[in-house]
């Protein structure tokens, strides 16, 4: 066993209001510079929808992530993972032209407005306008897409209909999903998953990408990166971006300069819905690759089997032997992420079938489930409880595609637990529910009253320090110091500073 610590995350989707505050705070600090205008290290998507970049979940198109050699069934013994985007040899031909790399048109062409025209326009009969100009060419342009172009379904069913996760849903289920004005949707904020089995790292021809040993943050060494773009193609979440100006690739750095100075990453700190949790997970690095070779339906369980119980004395001992400090182990024991992922099993990885073992977990949204269509009317479900799962407006199949690699049982157990917590608390506050059925729900949801209180407390009432439990990642202990993000805004690189310029 090779016990490593990972700074892991949980996003509670029930609480996300889709306000994009996280995206903006990230953009302002990290990607507000030439060549990075189109990058959104943090973005928020509407589901169902096609996301950013367009159709990023379509791996038939982008060929990201891992595939299992062989037929993909069995217990994973003797099976090997290989990159979907390249092998060691054709990687060399792909240096010259990478057929799987998304282009600017798959994201959007960044633009600004000619604000000066508003002041400089000569007096006339018409209101002066500020036309859009491209931030790539500086020429006037027609805006065709943006980073959240399908936000709130964008007034059309085009984007929702093309959601890759709808595959396998019946027409009836789809129609129910897209009914105008009664459409059901939720928001999906995405940052880099800082995977435990990162395909981007494996794909980099120069070896510029690496996972930090202490906290598991995946970074690109800007001085080693040669701009071969293999990582952009290999990351199934499309969370690596090619800076067209500097010729280097960039990605979310989990604000490590902030973490190292005891601060909370930008997108976490600015989250108004308080949906985000940050904490340490311990995992067994030796078994990662093997665990990701099992068949799709077993992947979620397989990932959980790698994560270690921080109270287990044996784990603690091995962690210490591996150089993990007492503070880290302490943080791992208090970790809200551990509670959501392992203790309550409420948080699930996004698209674990890409087999990169993401370390960002989502608590699936319950809200759209809590109603049904009855004679064309939208009704709150007040009785029958779990029967509503089958006729929920957001089909379990759809959520399972996203969060459990198609395994609906896992999604249903999460949903049942979430609903049980809700009804349990309602019965306590309002006393308008039948206690027998509540206790039946609790049983089916595998929930004790104490656990329900705990979940309720961490979901609805957490303070900043409940949500973000981090060890002191002392900066003075790190070998390479970094400059202050505030001072280096608009420049490239982190442990050094260079202006965003191409070549010499």
């Amino acid at each position, binding site marked *: 066993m090779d016990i490593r610590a990972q700074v892991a995350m949980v996003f509670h989707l029930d609480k996300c209001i889709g306000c994009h505050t996280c995206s903006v705070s990230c953009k302002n600090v990290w990607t507000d510079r030439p060549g990075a205008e189109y990058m959104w290290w943090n973005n928020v998507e509407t589901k169902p929808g096609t996301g950013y*970049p*367009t*159709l990023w979940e*379509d791996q038939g*198109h*982008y060929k990201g992530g891992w595939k299992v050699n062989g037929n993909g069934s069995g217990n994973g013994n003797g099976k090997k993972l290989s990159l979907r985007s390249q092998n060691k040899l054709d990687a060399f031909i792909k240096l010259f032209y990478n057929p799987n790399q998304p282009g600017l*048109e*798959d994201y959007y062409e960044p633009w600004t407005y000619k604000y000066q025209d508003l002041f400089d326009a000569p007096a006339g009969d018409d209101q002066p306008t500020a036309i859009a100009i491209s931030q790539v060419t500086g020429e006037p342009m027609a805006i065709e897409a943006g980073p959240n172009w399908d936000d709130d379904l964008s007034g059309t069913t085009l984007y929702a209909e*093309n959601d890759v996760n709808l595959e396998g849903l019946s027409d009836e289920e789809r129609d129910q999903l897209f009914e105008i004005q009664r459409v059901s949707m939720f928001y999906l904020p995405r940052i880099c998953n800082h995977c435990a089995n990162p395909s981007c790292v494996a794909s980099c021809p120069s070896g510029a990408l690496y996972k930090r040993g202490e906290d598991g943050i995946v970074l690109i060494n800007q001085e080693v990166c040669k701009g071969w773009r293999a990582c952009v193609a290999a990351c199934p979440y499309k969370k690596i971006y090619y800076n067209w100006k500097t010729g280097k690739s960039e990605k979310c750095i989990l604000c490590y300069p902030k973490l190292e100075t005891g601060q909370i990453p930008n997108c976490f700190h600015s989250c108004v819905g308080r949906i985000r949790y940050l904490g340490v997970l311990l995992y067994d690095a030796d078994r990662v690759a093997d665990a990701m070779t099992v068949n799709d339906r077993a992947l979620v369980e397989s990932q959980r089997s790698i994560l270690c119980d921080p109270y287990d004395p044996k784990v603690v001992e091995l962690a210490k032997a591996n150089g993990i400090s007492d503070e880290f182990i302490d943080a791992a024991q208090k970790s809200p992420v551990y509670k959501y992922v392992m203790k309550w099993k409420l948080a699930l990885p996004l698209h674990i079938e890409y087999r990169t073992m993401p370390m960002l977990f989502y608590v699936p949204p319950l809200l759209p489930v809590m109603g049904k269509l009855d004679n064309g009317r939208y009704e709150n479900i007040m009785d029958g409880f779990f029967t509503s799962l089958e006729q929920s407006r957001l089909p379990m199949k759809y959520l399972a595609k996203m969060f459990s690699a198609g395994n609906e049982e896992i999604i249903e157990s999460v949903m049942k637990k979430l609903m049980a917590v809700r009804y349990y608390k309602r019965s306590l506050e309002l006393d308008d529910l039948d206690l027998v059925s509540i206790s039946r729900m609790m049983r089916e949801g595998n929930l004790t009253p104490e656990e329900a209180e705990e979940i309720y407390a961490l979901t609805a009432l957490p303070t900043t320090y409940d949500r973000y439990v981090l060890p002191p990642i002392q900066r003075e202990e790190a070998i390479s110091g970094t400059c202050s993000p505030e001072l280096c805004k608009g420049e490239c690189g982190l442990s050094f500073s260079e202006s965003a310029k191409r070549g010499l």
Partner: protein
Amino acid sequence: MASCLFWLSWVSLAFPALAAGGADEGAALFAQKCAGCHTIGRGALVGPDLAKVSSWSAADAESAVKRMQKMAGPLTENEIDNLVGLLKDTKGGDRLKAQSEAAATPEVTGGEAGSAQTGRRLFDGRQSFANGGMACIACHTVGGSGSSMGPDLSGVAAKMGETSLLSACEQTAFKVMKAAYAQHPVTKQEALHLVKYFVSLKDNPETAATPPVTIYGVAGATLLMLVIAWGYRDRNGSARSKLHRR
């Protein structure tokens, strides 16, 4: 030395018939060492026509001959005197002609006589030169087949006498060849073969065309582009273009 020169020129003036008919050492030497690049009164080859040297002073001619040693190899005092004598002789051209008629087949001490067949093999590289020089076909053409780096050698035997050719093949004191063959000299025997081959071209010229490498090249390029087109036939278009309404 001056008296020696004087004597030589006097002898050649006084007894031209003797010089031409008998062992004209100067002319023989010229044919062997110099004729590859120079003529006397028959126009410029690689080097200039040396007819005008007869009006130079003996000392100038001698120093010029000495300078040429770096091309033609070391000469003995006696050989230098002979050559200077020939060059100073106003009838040098005639003596040369007489000499080449007298010695229609070049004499080689020892070894086999030249064979056109072997010459051809040496020319086109099927047989390599003993000292590792490049085959002639690398730069020269015969009958339109070969490289145009150097001149076409199809009619070279008509332009130069056999002795001159032999000398040219051996000395290789030409522009590009000088450096290229400095470390890889052509042996006398090989030169003989080559001369035979060049002479044989007079009677039965070759007309083999250069293989159409350009056409092969264009065909290969087309093939390669087709392979690329085939290999990437289903490359990604824009993902946005895949969006469609049901």
